[in-house]
């Protein structure tokens, strides 16, 4: 892109919002998107000496703690390699919670930026989810290392993981759009979500196996859409099995609905962001 060519036109009469225009603007700003992701990652790791390795250290430490706690103190019967059971569900779950939570702060942090230059507003949630995605992928390196060390078999079904990741990321992006837009308008959304996410954590079989849930409560786990969606990532790693096709399709549909709703609400509310940020 050289200098004095193709003038960018701003014409307030013709720049009404449309989804197509927003998507095009995001694509045109791909370079900015990459810079936002890079900024997220650099800022997060800058001050720690071990830098990017922190992402990998985190699951390692978690594993050690959990093995001590759950393999020796609270025992779940019939769960072999508990630490792998846990991590294979927890890593995608953490990606979901961290990205959605950060998308809320990211939008208000970038408020100053949005007041200085015209940028597509959806770009901030997208970049947050993207940097979370990078962390998610990195976190699987120590997971596989742990599996090798602990002698848990890594089966070819792990090749399904990219599909699982894409579905989970799409779902996460939709929720991020929704929450970050609401959080601009309402101060208490972030706090409420924090409380809600604790409930969600125990309603999702991440830390415990689903079999230990008493019969009368199992519906609670079942109606939780997260249960199925995270199974997509756990099954191929922990059980060495591909998820059933109806679970894949159902989760993919859920992800698309989440994205559509999030996108719609975000862009509906984003017109008033300026007055609230």
């Amino acid at each position, binding site marked *: *892109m050289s*200098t*004095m060519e193709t*003038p*960018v*036109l*701003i*014409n*307030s*009469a013709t*720049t*009404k919002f449309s989804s197509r225009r927003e998507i095009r603007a995001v694509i*045109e*700003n791909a*370079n*900015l998107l*990459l*810079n936002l992701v890079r*900024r997220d990652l*650099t*800022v997060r790791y*800058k*001050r720690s000496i071990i830098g990017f390795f922190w992402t990998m250290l985190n699951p390692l430490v978690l594993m050690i703690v959990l093995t001590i706690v759950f393999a020796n103190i609270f025992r779940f019967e019939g769960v072999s390699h508990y630490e792998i059971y846990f991590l294979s569900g927890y890593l995608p779950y953490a990606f979901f919670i961290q990205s959605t939570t950060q998308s809320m702060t990211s939008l208000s942090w970038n408020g*100053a*930026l*949005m*007041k*200085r*230059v*015209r*940028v597509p507003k959806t770009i901030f949630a997208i970049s947050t989810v993207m940097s979370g995605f990078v962390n998610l992928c990195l976190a699987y390196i120590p997971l596989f290392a742990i599996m090798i060390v602990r002698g848990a078999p890594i089966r070819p079904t792990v090749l399904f993981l990219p599909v699982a990741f894409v579905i989970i990321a799409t779902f996460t992006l939709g929720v991020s759009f929704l929450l970050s837009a*609401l959080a601009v*308008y*309402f*101060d*208490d*959304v972030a706090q*409420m979500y924090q409380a809600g996410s604790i409930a969600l954590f125990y309603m999702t079989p991440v830390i415990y196996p689903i079999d230990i849930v008493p019969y009368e409560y199992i519906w609670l786990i079942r109606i939780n859409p997260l249960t199925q969606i995270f199974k997509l990532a756990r099954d191929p790693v922990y059980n060495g099995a591909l998820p059933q096709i109806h679970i894949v399709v159902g989760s993919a549909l859920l992800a698309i609905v989440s994205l559509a709703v999030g996108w719609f609400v975000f862009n509906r509310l984003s*017109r*008033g962001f*300026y*007055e*609230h940020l």
Partner: protein
Amino acid sequence: MKEPTIEFREVSHDFRVYSEGRMASLKEWLIRRIKRRKAELRRVVALDNVSFEVGQGQALGLIGHNGAGKSSLLRIAAGIIQPRAGTAVVRGLVAPILELGFGFEQELTGRENIVFNGALLGRSRQEMNERMEEIVSFAELSNFIDQPIRTYSTGMVSRLAFSIATAVDAQILLLDEVLSVGDERFQRKCAERIDHFRNNGVTILFVSHALPSVEMLCDKVIWLQEGRVQCEGETKHVIDEYHRSMSTG
């Protein structure tokens, strides 16, 4: 005749403010919803039927009291807010608004912020690296450029911001009170650069309370009062009028 770079036609804008401060909580909103009591919205006029044109290479000064609508006008020109009525047409690439606070990332170094700010305007890392030396030397930050921004003084930050904004080859610069920081020597340097830009066809909107700078830099001035154009025209004339109104109260 060439089309004007910035053209406002009967632009009006207002902000909607909740009468009881901001509508702060979702809980409150839900309760209101259930009680079917709508929050009262108050309209605050930001701009009222403002029309003007700025030609290529011209510098337009905007003066007026706080809350007169100057910053809203800049934001409409930058395409950040959509006016409620009227049309604003801008022909050319607009640099990010330069204002106090600047929006730098505190944890990143000066160098990283330069690349990041370039990305805001669609400039690639490589393009910014090519301009790096020039930006750094103009900002006089050679020794600090690899330090995080949080270690910079206000003067250093403003020098960097000015240096970046003027190095991205934007065709339109929007300056909000930026020349009031930095020492006199740097201010003079900035003024020289602005002059240089104007000679090269860069169009400038300059918001300032510092009337001497306005007088020095601008071809034309608009004096805004509660969102309306109170007086418009040749710099000296408008500033004199403004002074007169101040002295008579």
